[in-house]
């Protein structure tokens, strides 16, 4: 399965809905999307990963790169993920301490910390 991407806005947040596999082949598409959003002034991002089937370290690198970009504009990058197999990768790499991870888009949009 390839990568699918769509975006929408909710209030001052931009929701990026990601589906499929984020790997060494598809991650550049996600990176491009995040760069485009930040370039267009969207600094508060919510990446919805509920439909992601696979994530590797290249994908993690793209998410960390996105976080660095929004932070440079005092923005935020929140993740939505409840899938254990994806959460496990964030735990193994220690990135649960780096990203706020929420159980739903609603929760991520409402979060202000």
């Amino acid at each position, binding site marked *: 399965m390839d990568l699918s991407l769509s975006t929408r806005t909710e209030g001052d947040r931009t929701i990026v809905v990601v589906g499929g596999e984020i790997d060494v*082949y598809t991650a550049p598409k996600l*990176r491009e999307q995040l760069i485009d959003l930040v370039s267009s002034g969207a600094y508060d991002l919510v990446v919805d990963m509920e439909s992601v089937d*696979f994530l*590797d370290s290249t994908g993690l690198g793209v998410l960390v790169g996105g976080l660095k970009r929004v932070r440079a504009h005092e923005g935020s990058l929140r993740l939505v993920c409840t899938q254990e197999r994806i959460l496990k990768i964030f735990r193994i790499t220690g990135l649960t301490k780096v990203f706020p991870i929420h159980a739903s888009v609603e929760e991520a949009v409402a979060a202000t910390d």
Partner: protein
Amino acid sequence: MAIVELRFGALPAHVRTARLVAAAVARRSGVDDGLIDEVKLAVGEACARALALHEAHAPLEQVIVELSESPSEFVVTVRDCGPPDAAVQIPAARTEDMSALLESAIGADDGAASSAPLQLALIAGLVDELSVDRDGDHTNVRMRWSLNHVAHA
């Protein structure tokens, strides 16, 4: 002896094929269903590492993936033609180190790639045993999973 051998040219799209083949062979070899995702991720990371080395140093060479089984283990070896100094020591899979490895792997202005140390550290967290050794002009990343018991939570 390998029960399945896969060779692919240095294109990112082929890493997915290698993952899927590894998952299918692992399942058939009796690897616990709960570990199949870990096999896919570990093999994907090893192939992505090999791919990056080939892109930089040996773009015309093929990456070789050997999958083998015995009654007690399932073994995947990913063989690359990277330079000798790519046969690095395996970093400790401690999460604080990995987070730092990942942070340091992200270029300040391109926010791009991951790094070989990070990939090896992640693999180490997914397998029962990981070894990296040099064999002539090749580096072998060997990943082993025990069969008949679940070694990881």
